[in-house]
């Protein structure tokens, strides 16, 4: 009896150990798979040009000629500045309009609220490639093509619905008593929002804005159709590297590495709220 018990326990331990090994192998494979393109991009960006086409070279003296060249010859600085201006401006506007609306939806009995929230969800579903043509035509007649303002306005199409859904979730979590106390003290609703509520939802505001910045920073379809020379943003720089022959892979990778750094940093900051953003605020992260 006793010996059998020990044997059974050993078997259990062994299977538990096997399960744990399996888990770690799975996690490690998953992590390597997810990170590898970034790793490879950085490797390529640091290689000398002669090694770009040789994947067997893993250890080499890193050089920065690609980074120098994308700023000097490909004018990466202009792309980055445009991306930064567009992303920050559209995020600011979306946050202004979206937070106000989210507060309204959260605190008042808004008529047809379900319908309005559903409308915003439906906007999330509209393929940008399906409405970019009319935007292009309208902008063309209004002489707005290739301006940063056009991108800033267009990006509000996806940033405002996102902000409303996200911020409504954050507002819903705040107890109403907080504001009622402020109202007793004679604050108007707007003052209450500004002085009492916004400081409390600050983490939500930061998470939402970083999400808006990331999706604007990476946006490709609108930028491809609506810009050409002056207001090009970083994602469209791939246009310069599309030719099959003689793609400057090293420079391409240097562009990618520079471009991902701010976003990756932001993503790490909002890691806790990441899920909330990915699911349009539906899941409390």
């Amino acid at each position: 009896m006793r010996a059998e018990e020990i044997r059974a326990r050993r078997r259990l331990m062994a299977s538990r150990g096997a399960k744990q090994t399996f888990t770690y192998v799975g996690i490690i494979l998953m992590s390597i798979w997810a990170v590898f393109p970034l790793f490879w991009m950085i490797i390529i960006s640091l290689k000398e040009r002669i090694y770009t086409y040789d994947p067997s070279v893993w250890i080499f003296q890193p050089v920065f000629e690609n980074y120098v060249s994308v700023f000097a010859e490909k004018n990466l600085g202009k792309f980055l500045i445009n991306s930064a201006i567009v992303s920050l401006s559209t995020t600011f506007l979306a946050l202004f309009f979206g937070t106000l609306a989210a507060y309204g939806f959260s605190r008042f009995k808004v008529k047809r609220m379900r319908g309005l929230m559903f409308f915003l969800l439906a906007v999330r579903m509209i393929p940008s490639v399906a409405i970019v043509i009319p935007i292009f035509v309208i902008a063309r007649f209004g002489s707005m093509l290739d301006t940063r303002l056009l991108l800033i306005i267009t990006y509000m199409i996806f940033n405002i619905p996102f902000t409303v859904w996200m911020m409504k979730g954050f507002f819903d979590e705040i107890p109403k008593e907080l504001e009622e106390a402020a109202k007793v003290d004679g604050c108007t609703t707007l003052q209450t929002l500004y002085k009492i509520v916004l400081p409390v939802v600050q983490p939500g505001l930061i998470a939402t804005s970083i999400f808006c910045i990331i999706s604007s920073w990476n946006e490709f379809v609108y930028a491809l159709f609506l810009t050409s020379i002056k207001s090009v943003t970083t994602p469209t720089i791939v246009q310069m590297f599309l030719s099959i022959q003689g793609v400057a892979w090293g420079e391409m990778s240097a562009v990618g590495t520079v471009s991902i750094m701010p976003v990756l940093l932001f993503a790490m900051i909002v890691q806790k709220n990441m899920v909330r953003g990915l699911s349009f605020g539906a899941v409390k992260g």
Partner: protein
Amino acid sequence: MSNGVSIHTDKRATSRDLHNTRRYMPFVAPAMVVMVLLVAVPFIAVVLLSFTNYELAMPADSFKWIGLRNYDRLLFGTNKLLYYSLGISVGMMVVATVLQMLIGFFCASLLNRDIKFRGLAIACLLVPIAMTPSIASQIWKLMLNAEFGVINYFLKKLFNFSVVWLDKDNSLPSVLLVNIWSMTPYVTLTLYAGLRSLPLEPYESAVIDGANGRQVLMYVTLPMLKPLILLTLLFRSIDMLKMFDVPYVLTQGGPGNITEFIGLHIYRTGFGVTTLVGRASAISVILIVLVGIISLGMIKLMSSEEKG
């Protein structure tokens, strides 16, 4: 609601609501006006454009109304490219979404186990989400290159064979592969958070009842996670249908038209191979209708689940 107290509070609530109807407008109205303008104007314009023969090079006043001719050409013409594009887009949507959900759920349940370095693993998963899709696709194009790509380098080293990834037979699977890389982390992280938020009691009683691992998954985990799974399914499906960046960079729709997904079909018709903006608008309208049907269907499914 039968006792006096609640009737009393109800009355107070309604009087406050009447008061509120006047007060929520300044909060809600600006955003809604902006959104309606930003969506309705292009939406009406794309429908109008789809009834014209407008081309990119035309001056503003020289296009003609041609009624339903664009739709007629697209749906009943000799060129069946629209059906091919819709076919591969819907096919890619189904295959990619199913794979993303399965792999994502598997990875999420791995993450949910009692492991060390979980934060590091999650940080790794953020990389595909953060990388600019167009640039990431370009890097994948290099990695998948038949001669000097690192994927074939590994395949040769480990299994002594190589694949021509972007030729006519393999370009669709290659697009699928890149999509799975870039989108699965969304599913993984969402479902992982869902698993974390589940209550523990049902698991405890399942263990007491002697349920095995598979039974716990089928009768405890999945039913509780169902609303979140359906929501993720909705977002992933529609995002796959919208896909543009990956094939645009990876294959440009080629070789030939093999990877010309519906988004690329719009681009190539209106701005690339031909400049038939009118006809591209008609394809856009068809795509919007398709997206509308699919998302409405899935939202119906979700709300019927919610009710029970």
